[in-house]
């Protein structure tokens, strides 16, 4: 009798009202991130397709705004940037950004977010973010965070979609996506989008500081199942320079374009070949009401320049897999090149503005071993050696990084511990080309970090999960600006910091959930919000999706001792399915108009100009499946 009761109970659990459960499980199983997520590669945040849809994340910046331990903020140069919590405004944080296997480079300034943050996410299926403990298997030079965008899989789309967006500042965006399986083995994904973004102008002494941009993006991917994968991406756009040079612009145009090609091929004997090539060009046409003093002390009222960077890389990797062990060995060659076609001021003869290396050859060997002690316990060791030559230094630069990790994973409990070092190389901008305010320094060395980080997560029950993360870091040779000589230098004193984060996620049912997280960085000197948090609530009522998000960033005191108020960036997004083929959406960003601000112009004696990364705006869109 007992057995019958137990059997009945089990059948109820299995089949009673279980079509929903089966569908959920099926959707989870078919989500591609299950195949790419690497638990042992770091502390992971996965933003699923479903989350991106309901968040109405139109661009990468919409996602960056939500990331723990980083401040998404306005920047005088790029409009927006992302930097590590506590860092000074404008600090370059080496974030690495990938589309599938292709690393999006920003060779000059080392921060691809400034350039690609405005990229639309229409062709992206989900996003993986790896913080600390980043595995060497991604093949990149080390960074403080790795963001991987994975594109939609044609076999789960098999359709053509279009989306048109307009907002209260008359910005418009048009996206077209076509993804099909051609036959059993071949498939493609095509995405074209045009984005014309208008931002609030800053009126300063009757001069308009603008960070508007218009950008077009093309992406094409062709796949042969279990064989090769070819990807072409291109971006062309025009951007206003905001407060890059001064606060009195008469003309401030930046035109840029980049194109990349990525080929991944599976070779015999379980070897993967990844070839990548990218070219980027930027030209600036700037005219000032008064003068801008360049780093070579020339006073300029008119600046024109054209720069070009390119990158070529090849990676060969092989996995040796046994029942308990997965050993990956790889080698990589990467050539980075930069050049200035011209740099003219006041319409005179071109100037020589390059003061350091412009050609970098990076040769790397790396490997990672994952060993399963048993079903629940895994240990990992990763090693990477880089040998870097350039056309300026007589001696090559070398770097060696290691990572040791332990992962415990059971049905309800996950525990991770990583010990590793990191060496962040200076950028070409810091070493060779920095025309305004701060002089480059060709002798800069890498920033060296030693880090211990740990994370635990525990499933309280079927629908609730809590997590806690701790880390300690010791940083040497930080790259900073010496205010006496106004030049980039490696700081002699080392810096230490600790950080902590916690989060809780609760699913009320299949369609309704809440996620809350909080973090705090403990550091002696802090120049941007050291703590923050986020509340995200996802609801579905019939055909309506509702998303609420509140991003909090703490108050802080900047480098000029000015106090900045705490930020509260509230977003509300509502989507309504008109039919299976058509959805209308409305989204309000920074609705309270209280998002965290930074000074893009600061003066200890005067009132500066402070702005938030996101304007207050309402966005409406209509999506249709053809």
């Amino acid at each position, binding site marked *: 009798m007992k057995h019958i009761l137990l059997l009945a109970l089990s059948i109820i659990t299995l089949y009673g009202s279980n079509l929903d459960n089966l*569908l959920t499980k*099926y*959707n989870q199983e*078919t*989500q591609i991130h299950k195949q790419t997520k690497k638990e042992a590669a770091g502390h992971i945040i996965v933003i699923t397709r479903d989350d991106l849809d309901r968040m109405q994340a139109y661009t990468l910046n919409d996602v960056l705004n939500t990331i723990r331990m980083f401040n998404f903020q306005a920047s005088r140069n790029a409009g927006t940037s992302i930097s590590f919590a506590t860092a000074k405004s404008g600090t370059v944080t080496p974030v690495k950004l990938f589309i599938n296997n292709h690393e999006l480079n920003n060779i000059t300034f080392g921060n691809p977010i400034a350039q690609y943050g405005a990229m639309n996410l229409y062709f992206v299926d989900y996003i993986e973010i790896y913080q600390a403990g980043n595995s060497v298997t991604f093949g990149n030079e080390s960074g403080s965070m790795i963001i991987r965008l994975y594109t939609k899989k044609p076999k*789960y*789309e098999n359709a053509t979609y279009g989306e048109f967006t307009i907002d209260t500042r008359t910005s418009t965006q048009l996206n077209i996506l076509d993804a099909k399986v051609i036959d059993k083995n071949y498939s493609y994904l095509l995405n074209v989008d045009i984005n014309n973004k208008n931002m609030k102008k800053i009126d300063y002494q009757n001069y308009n500081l603008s960070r508007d941009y218009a950008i077009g993006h093309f992406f094409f991917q062709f796949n042969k199942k279990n064989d090769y994968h070819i990807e072409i991406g291109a971006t062309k756009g025009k951007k206003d320079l905001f407060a890059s040079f001064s606060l009195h612009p008469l003309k401030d145009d930046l035109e840029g374009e980049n194109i990349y090609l990525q080929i991944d091929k599976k070779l015999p004997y379980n070897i993967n070949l990844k070839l990548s090539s990218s070219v980027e060009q930027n030209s600036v046409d700037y005219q000032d009401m008064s003068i801008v003093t360049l780093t070579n002390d020339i006073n300029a009222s008119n600046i024109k320049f054209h720069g070009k960077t390119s990158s070529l890389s090849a990676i060969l990797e092989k996995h040796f897999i046994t029942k308990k062990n997965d050993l990956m060995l790889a080698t990589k060659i990467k050539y980075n090149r930069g050049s200035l076609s011209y740099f003219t001021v006041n319409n005179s003869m071109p100037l020589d503005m390059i003061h350091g290396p412009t050609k970098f050859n990076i040769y790397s060997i790396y490997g990672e071993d994952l060993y399963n002690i048993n079903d629940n316990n895994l240990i990992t060791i990763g090693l990477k050696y880089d040998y870097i030559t350039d056309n300026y230094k007589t001696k090559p630069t070398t770097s060696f990084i290691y990572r040791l990790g332990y992962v415990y994973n059971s049905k309800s409990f996950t525990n991770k511990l990583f010990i590793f070092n990191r060496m962040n190389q200076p950028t070409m901008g810091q070493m060779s080309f920095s025309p305004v305010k701060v002089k480059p320094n060709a002798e800069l060395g890498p920033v060296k970090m030693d880090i211990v980080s740990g994370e635990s997560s525990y499933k309280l029950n079927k629908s609730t999960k809590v997590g806690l993360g701790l880390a300690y870091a010791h940083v040497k040779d930080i790259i900073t600006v010496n205010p006496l000589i106004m030049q980039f230098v490696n700081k002699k004193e080392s810096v230490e910091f600790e950080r902590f984060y916690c989060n809780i996620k609760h699913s009320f049912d299949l369609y309704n959930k809440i996620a809350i997280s909080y973090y705090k960085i403990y550091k002696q000197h802090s120049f941007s919000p050291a703590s923050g948090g986020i509340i995200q609530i996802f609801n579905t009522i019939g055909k309506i999706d509702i998303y609420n998000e509140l991003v909090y960033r703490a108050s802080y005191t900047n480098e000029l001792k000015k106090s900045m108020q705490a930020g509260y960036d509230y977003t509300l997004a509502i989507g309504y399915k008109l*039919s*299976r083929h058509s959805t209308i959406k409305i989204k309000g960003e920074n609705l309270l108009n209280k998002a965290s601000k930074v000074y893009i112009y600061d003066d200890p004696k005067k009132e500066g100009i402070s702005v938030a990364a996101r304007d207050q705006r309402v966005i409406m869109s209509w999506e249709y*499946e053809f």
Partner: protein
Amino acid sequence: MKLLAMLLLYAIVLSADSKTLMYEIISNVLDNLETPKNKIIYSDDENLLKNLGKHYKTSQTCQESTFIILQKSTLEAACKSKDIFVLNYDLLSTMPESLGAFFFQKGRANIVLLKPKLKQHHIKPSSELLPYLEDKIW
């Protein structure tokens, strides 16, 4: 022993891959549709048919079947009056005889059952299928 077998079955379903889960979902939909005649299943998806054969009587031809599950649009005219369930949302429109679909849209699996078609075919859905009933193709 029975208990062990039951737990084993439970574990298999919990760890099932996407194909197995898809078969489970379709099997579950069939379980919850009360048809006037005993179900004899035909499908142009051989693996699905083989799998459903573990729980249902199946047929290798559509003529001998009472319930048809289609992934492609080709079907003999003589079979079009039978109960037809499709594995592609577009087939619901292009094949007006079909009464429901299991399909992917924007990366998510969905189930739709059309109320008028079920009524026309004298099929009674169980309460578990109520969330998936719709009046028309929209």
